């Protein structure tokens, strides 16, 4: 019997209570938010619980919301229960001054490079990560390019005229 979203929600509320907020069910996928200190506890609960058993990390990524003061960075985990074919989306938020989030690479080995990519793009510091270096950009880069305040184009290029290229 496929695992329904309300069963997942009931079990999570049972375990964690009211700290889990922003419950949403968009396009069929249940999504919720937890405070950033509890991210490993929630992931471990979802992994170890026999009924929920979300043992596959589909994706880990980051989003920058400059308008949410105090919670600018969001780390989004997509988890998948392969046996029951259920998916859930789990978010944690962090402020831009101290973007520290505990690493999930102890539980899921696949989270290693996914967290490095999120660090490379946003500067989110994953506490406890074995090798938190840039993975896609050049190592000497001194800013985090996917943040909303930085432009797409390389500002030092001389051969392209911004007026003609319709930015």
């Amino acid at each position, binding site marked *: 019997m496929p695992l329904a979203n309300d069963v997942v929600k009931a079990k999570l509320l049972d375990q964690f209570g009211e700290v889990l907020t922003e419950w949403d069910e968009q*396009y069929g996928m249940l999504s919720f938010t937890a405070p950033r200190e509890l991210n490993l506890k929630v992931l471990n609960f979802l992994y170890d619980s026999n009924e929920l058993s979300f043992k*596959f990390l589909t994706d880990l990524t980051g989003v920058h919301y400059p308008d949410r003061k105090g919670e600018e960075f969001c780390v*989004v985990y*997509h988890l998948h229960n392969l046996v029951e074919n259920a998916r859930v989306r789990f978010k944690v938020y962090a402020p831009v001054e101290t973007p520290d989030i505990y690493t999930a690479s102890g539980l899921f080995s*696949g989270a290693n490079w996914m967290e490095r*990519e999120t660090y490379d*793009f946003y500067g989110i510091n994953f506490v406890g990560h074995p090798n938190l270096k840039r*993975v*896609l950009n050049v190592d000497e880069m001194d800013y985090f390019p996917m943040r909303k305040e930085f432009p*797409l184009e390389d500002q030092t290029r001389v051969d392209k005229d911004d007026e003609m290229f319709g930015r």
Partner: protein
Amino acid sequence: MSDHINIKLPEGSIEKQTTTLNLGPTHPATHGVFQNILELDGERIIKTESTVGYIHRAFEKIAERRPLYQITTLTDRLNYCSSPINNMGWHLTCEKLLGVKTPKRVDYLRVIIMELARISDHLICNSIVGVDTGAYTGFLYVMQYRELIYEIYEEVCGSRLTTNMGRIGGFERNFSDTAFLKLEKFLAEYPKVQQELEDLFARNRIFVERTKGTGAISAERALNYSFTGPNLRAAGVDYDVRVHSPYSSYEDFDFIIPVGTSGDNYDRFMVRNSEIWESLSIIRQAYQKVQNFKGAEADVYHADAPEYYLPEKGDVYTKMEALIWHFKIVMGETESPSGEVYMSVEGGNGELGFYLISDGGRTPYRLHFRRPCFIYYQAYEEIVRGSMLSDAIITLSSMNLIAGEMDA
């Protein structure tokens, strides 16, 4: 001379008398640009350190500046050996966000194109594994037949490799009769070539000795590393997005998921080989279903979604509503819902996912590609530790690492 490329010797390598070998970004053409710094003890690999990002093109940042229908050209360049699958996956994501339902004929045509793309991707991977073991012939035979697939793409969308095929809601034009004739020619001629390719490798003593037992990964480690696609199926887990969460009417088709046992290079080769046979069977079934549409239904090639699908040019010049819709779509004035959607399709290498956060505007607020190659390349270090250098090379090519998808 090499001060701009720093090769740091691994810790303790001088005391342990190990050699450092740079399997650098310039591979012999076929594989793509990624670097491995290997620490070798004689021929055995003790440790590797992988570096990617040599073709990082900032797709996710570009996607924040482009309207939804212009992002299709970016998705082409992800896994460029099978670009139609990426295109269709993106269109399916947009249709899920916008609430557009495609008619069955469009779904079946999409299935034909996606399976042709899957065959094209697996052919490159398998023949390159052959080239790396020394058998160049299979590669040349197979490239000749990929030209037939390219001709079918050309009939549908005009381009061979980076196809930008289809629109949100369907296709840009109906498939011409020539396209179907070319498809029939391919279906008639190709199976015996595939049989020859399989016979050349499947029980060939040299190939089997080189690939059996090398590059193995167990199912538990593969799941922990979030493997998907043929690499995971070779390890024994039968997870295929087409069956688990069917999209584009895949539930109407009858096919099996081939699964290996030990996750080594031979199993990956045979799983891809079997998937090519399954794809041929799916294409035949889809072609049969498309031919069953008669009369007016046989001319349907897009969904009825005037807010997102450009109207016919003749109508734009004569009818008022069509002119207004054309203006709204091109200038980006159509209302699109705000929300978050995650949609995944079975790409050539596994679950290709699109995580789209839209704020109701013309361009996405955030678009993230869940790229299977990037995720499973992390496991390379664990797979080749302790094996010989030549096995590491074969593992690299049998894992089908496409650099465009890895770096995005």
